[in-house]
């Protein structure tokens, strides 16, 4: 049995999850990563996607997050997300809203001629489109 570490998921509005976890997978900007206890300290920003934590209490739980970053240290993982919601509570309207925000972001950067940021926003949007069927209730 793997060691436990503290996992916290915070959105601006509230503390969504806090507890002991064995493993947490999160969508980093440069690729998904799985975190076990005793991980080296890393700070990474996040793509839109699913954070999955294997919690001691409550078992495996998934959250949809957008924007923000994860603060990983040997002691635990803290995720600060601009928008976060448990996957089971995610509705189609919420998801459409997220896509709209991503689209706006893209349009803004594209109009400003900032291609690097535009490409980034574009990939976020693609990511959202790509995972839409898999995480939304039919």
């Amino acid at each position, binding site marked *: 049995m793997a060691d436990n570490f503290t996992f916290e998921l915070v959105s601006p509005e509230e*503390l969504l999850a806090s507890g002991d976890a064995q493993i947490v997978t999160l969508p980093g900007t440069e690729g998904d990563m799985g975190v076990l206890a005793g991980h080296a300290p890393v700070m990474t920003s996040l793509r839109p996607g699913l954070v999955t934590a294997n919690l001691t209490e409550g078992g495996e739980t998934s959250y949809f997050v957008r924007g923000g970053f994860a603060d990983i240290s040997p002691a635990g993982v803290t995720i600060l997300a*601009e928008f976060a919601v448990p996957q089971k509570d995610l509705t189609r309207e919420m998801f459409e809203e997220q896509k709209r925000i991503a689209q706006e972001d893209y349009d803004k950067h594209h109009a400003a001629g900032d291609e690097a940021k535009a490409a980034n926003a574009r990939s976020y949007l693609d990511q959202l489109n790509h995972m839409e069927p898999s995480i939304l209730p039919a």
Partner: protein
Amino acid sequence: MASLKDLRNRIASVKATQKITKAMQMVAAAKLRRAQQAAESARPFSQRMDAVMANIASAIGDSESAPKLLSGTGNDQTHLLVVATAERGLCGGFNSSIARLARDKARELRASGKQVKILPIGKKGADILKREFADLMLPTVDLRDVKHVGFENANAIAKQVLDLFDSGEFDIATLFYAEFKSVISQIPTAQQVIPPEIAAVDSEPEANSASTMYDYEPDESEILEDLLPRNVAVQIFRALLENAASEQGARMSAMDNATRNAGEMIDKLTLTYNRQRQAQITKELIEIISGAEAL
């Protein structure tokens, strides 16, 4: 001397007023609880944010490459005052005390030859500041239709502020709001958000060593670039929540006072009314008796 009927009407009207203020007080109390809860549950986020900001900022330091949002434009000629107040009145000195703080600051800045722009959030503060600084006002941010302040609201305001910053409209932004201490005490506060005041990194050796060891993915400057605008939104969000709680607190105590005053007034009026009625009865009795004696 007011007639008995006048007094009766007066008492009835004060009683009606008292009912209204009493109801407003109770509504404010209920809303206060919710607003306080919202402010409390938002606290972990801004605390962590502050910690991370302090970490990264100390890692990057004052290097040339530091983004403008962190180090400032190197100028302090134009100031933006973001003044957050309520959309509604009848909450004691809440709106005016925030507006006063902003006004003093604006006067001070103008006296020292700086340029000032004011971005009001909420109608009440805008109305007060318009009297003196009509030419400095940017369009008011209207939150009248917003029941519960969400992060999106703060984000929209932050976007507006950042756009202004990017187009070089100002150098320094200060946020005005009332910090919620307790129901009877809300403290008008000014906080500089651009460039941010970074709290000194904890001097705990543990925290320090942790910060130097961090791996950044992507690198520090990119994360920082992502983080800084977000920090502005978080600060504004926090201010809005504090304000919401403060507003309800101020309204609650103001309405409590009003209810008490109305009660006192009713007592006084009732006393006058009874006295006058008694005087009239006595007068009538005297008339009857002296009439009987004359016979």
